């Protein structure tokens, strides 16, 4: 082994260790103290949570938001603490939050641990893409920001409106239901479509449509033949701005799409992403809009 | 004594060495000659343990296969045929690498002296890659010399194993390098050199092994081995030893060059910019 050793090794290691250890001592000198929470300084993480807070009239209490919170427009003016699933603990703490409300799935877990350790009130709002899910989401946010009464009113109104939509859909009868294909993107002429268990599947069901693809969960690329087999009556997409005429033209020109009923009739519906898939206070409106787009009036 | 017994080496199915016996004595310069592909370099690589082989190689009676790398390094140094270098080391850094392998590790004057020995004083801080092929070859020789600086150490001969040490050198440097090998042997060390140039071999070697087709066809003192018959058989063309060309034809033999030190004092500081004509 002696051949491998040289005399320089240990000394520089010692130096590095000393430097790093001194950095460590810097930190370790810190001691615990206590800060009182200020619940009028809300950090809202997740597009639908932010929408609900604004809908409950507590928008002025929100001081920061995440990247997915793009509605209402006032929210966009607030500091952005980063993407919902890649938050940095110091970024969130830097805005001196008094209360953190996060959509389910906010992360990474290490950041959430630090935030919880900071003894800040931290609420995680559960998510599910159906009528009951929206109601419990609104109630949970209401509890968190101490606006339970307003939340109950909003939740009841939404529930009623969704219930009416559902009743209308049932009244329409199975034979009239339309098959809807939700397309997330058409990158490189490959269609990324929604299967089951997604927000898109949820909203299609609420609007009284049938999801055209039920063979897989989540968003996956579809082959041309699968698109033909899915035989959608309507294609649903997110509105990303830009020239829809050209984008729709491109989509409808794809060989597989031309063979579907939607392709033949040119039935493409575009709606704003957060509006359509957010499952927040605007969802009843979104359901009605989508229903109107599918079935008219 | 460096001794190899019934060495066989196969590359795939091809037998490159077929049961070779070889011996070299300290104090001697032993040359291995033979045509291309006769197995000269493979034999040297077997002697250094670089290629897998059957049979045994012993150095003063001990099997080199059982010796540790650093034990071997202290007793023999190897000059490869072509030496690549991966990173931009300077000349002195390359020579020092040899120093750290041998037992003269503590003696910091050795690398400088080794460079001076190969006529490369003044090149110490040049980048190795910026040198010409011949200069690189001499730097490698200096590195090898630094590793076994004293030809005899603790009463035992040390060894230089050289693979075509003069291949890329001009005639002046061929004489210089062969002179160094000769001196090493004269001082009690052992030298084994794979050689292409039969004249230089004849001029500097004590003993010769002639190889052909993976075998040694003759081995022994110069005069016994360097014969018309043996060489013609090995190289496959009619060679005649000791016969001058017809009168009037031009020829230059290393034998008739005047000794190098008569022209160039050993302790000259060579200016790298004007190093084109060291002679």
């Amino acid at each position, binding site marked *: 082994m002696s051949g491998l050793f040289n005399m320089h090794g240990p000394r520089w290691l010692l130096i590095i260790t000393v430097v790093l250890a001194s950095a460590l001592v810097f930190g370790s000198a810190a001691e615990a103290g206590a800060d009182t929470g200020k619940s009028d300084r809300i950090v809202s993480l997740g597009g639908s949570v932010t929408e609900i807070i604004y809908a409950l009239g507590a928008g002025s209490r929100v001081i920061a938001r995440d990247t997915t919170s793009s509605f209402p427009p006032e929210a966009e003016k607030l500091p952005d603490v980063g993407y919902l699933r890649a938050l940095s603990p*110091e970024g969130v703490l830097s805005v001196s939050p008094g209360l953190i409300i996060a959509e389910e799935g906010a992360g*990474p877990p290490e950041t959430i641990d*630090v935030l919880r350790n900071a003894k800040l009130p931290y609420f995680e709002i559960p998510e599910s893409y159906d009528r009951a899910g929206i109601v419990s989401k609104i109630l949970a946010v209401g509890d968190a920001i101490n606006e339970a009464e307003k939340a109950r009113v909003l939740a009841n109104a939404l529930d009623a409106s969704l219930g009416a939509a559902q009743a209308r859909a049932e009244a329409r009868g199975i034979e009239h239901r339309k098959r809807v294909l939700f397309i997330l993107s058409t990158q490189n002429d490959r269609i990324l479509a929604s299967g089951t268990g997604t927000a898109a599947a949820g909203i299609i069901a609420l609007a009284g449509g049938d999801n055209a693809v039920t063979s897989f969960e989540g968003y996956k690329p579809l082959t041309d033949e699968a698109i033909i087999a899915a035989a959608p009556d309507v294609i649903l997409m997110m509105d990303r701005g830009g020239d829809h005429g050209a984008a729709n033209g491109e989509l409808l020109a794809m060989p597989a799409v031309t063979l579907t009923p939607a392709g033949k009739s040119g039935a493409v519906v575009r709606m704003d992403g957060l509006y359509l898939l957010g499952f927040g206070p605007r969802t009843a409106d979104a359901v009605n809009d989508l229903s109107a787009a599918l079935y008219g009036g | 004594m460096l001794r190899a017994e019934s060495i066989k080496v196969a590359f795939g199915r091809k037998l490159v060495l077929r049961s070779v016996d070889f011996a070299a004595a300290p104090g001697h310069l032993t040359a291995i000659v033979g045509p291309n592909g006769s197995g000269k370099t493979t034999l040297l690589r077997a002697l250094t343990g670089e290629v897998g082989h059957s049979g045994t190689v012993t150095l003063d009676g001990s099997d080199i296969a059982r010796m540790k790398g650093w034990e071997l390094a202290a007793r023999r140094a190897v000059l490869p045929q072509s030496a690549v270098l991966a990173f931009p080391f300077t000349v002195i850094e390359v020579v020092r690498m040899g120093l750290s392998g041998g037992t003269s590790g503590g003696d910091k004057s050795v690398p400088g002296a080794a460079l001076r020995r190969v006529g490369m004083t003044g090149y110490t801080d040049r980048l190795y*890659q910026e040198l010409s092929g011949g200069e690189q070859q001499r730097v490698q020789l200096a590195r090898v010399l630094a590793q076994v600086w004293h030809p005899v150490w603790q009463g035992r001969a040390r060894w230089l194993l050289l693979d075509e040490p003069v291949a890329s050198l001009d005639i002046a440097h061929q004489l210089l390098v062969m002179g160094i090998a000769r001196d090493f042997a004269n001082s009690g060390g052992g030298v084994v050199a794979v050689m292409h140039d039969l004249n230089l071999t004849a001029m500097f070697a004590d003993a010769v092994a002639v190889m052909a087709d993976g075998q040694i066809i003759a081995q022994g003192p110069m005069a016994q081995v360097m014969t018309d018959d043996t060489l013609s058989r090995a190289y496959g063309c009619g060679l005649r030893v000791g016969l001058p060309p017809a009168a009037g034809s031009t020829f230059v033999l290393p034998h008739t060059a005047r000794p190098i030190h008569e022209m160039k004092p050993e302790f000259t*500081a060579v200016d790298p910019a004007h190093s084109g004509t060291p002679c």
Partner: protein
Amino acid sequence: MVAFPDSAIETIGRDRDIVARRTRLLLITVLAATCIFSLAFGAAGTSLWGALYKLANGQTLSDMERIVLWDIRAPRTLMGAFVGASLAVAGAVMQGLFRNPLADPGLVGVGAGAGLGAICAIVLGALLPAAFINLFGNWLVSAAAFLGGWGSTLLLYRVATRSGRTSVATMLLAGIALGALAGALSGLLVYMADDRQLRDLTFWGLGSLAGATWAKLFVAVPLILLSICAAGFLGRGLNAMALGEATAHHIGIPVQRLKTVAVMTVAASTGAAVAVAGGIGFVGIVVPHLLRLATGPDHRMLLPNAALLGASLLIGADVIARVVIAPAELPIGIVTAVLGAPVFLWILLRRRGLVDL
């Protein structure tokens, strides 16, 4: 015709050593400065000096100060230092071993293996029994990345080792094959992933020190430190390897042991670094290359200097990553690539003649 005294030759020859030693002192200073910088700056306005002043006067720190300085910035800074050091040293060792200035730990399959491990954990993690997930908690991705990196290196090493001799060339080729296989499996898992998992994968691939915690430090640092220490003893051997494997052996270097130690330490330290910080590129190539230009290729100097510069560089990149778009932050891999790639190109252009050295 003046005689050149030996001592003069020695002095000339030691020049690069002296530069390297001075560089080391400079780098130690720079590292100390970046450490302080990293503790002092961040999205939160918390002042390091304010906190130190409080401590000096026997006052207690506020919760905010304690959390920001102690729970967030301190582990982040240390993690940056160790990950940066480990990536730079691993790069230098790989380059020495493969005798190629463009080699990196990816060549021994650490990157591909660790990536596959991480993707498995992110995508398939949800399918594991709940008890298992609870056992690992936040560690699942890190543990899987480490095991993936380490496992693939061991596999490569076995493939490339015949009767006690490891062929570096075989390792390189097998590494390419293994990389392709890992890429295909990763692709399969990406296909199975939902869109959230895809975002997670993207962010993992870009690396971040945001997940640095004391607990992770305590696990990763011993591995990294041990590997860097082991690498510290490879300097002379790697120098000799520059002359080729055979010559290194003739000089007395235990070449096989050198290869084993080099591969294992690189796998362990890179595996640990990638596991806690994700994929961070360019440090392993740019740092050793810069140092080679500044102080020469002698690995006895290069390895410690690379550790110091790598540590400083990553801490610096992390400070930029978390300050530039605060309160949000950039993935650190973006910062290192944005800083590293132009520097690298500039070096190549400026030193065109020496690129193939």
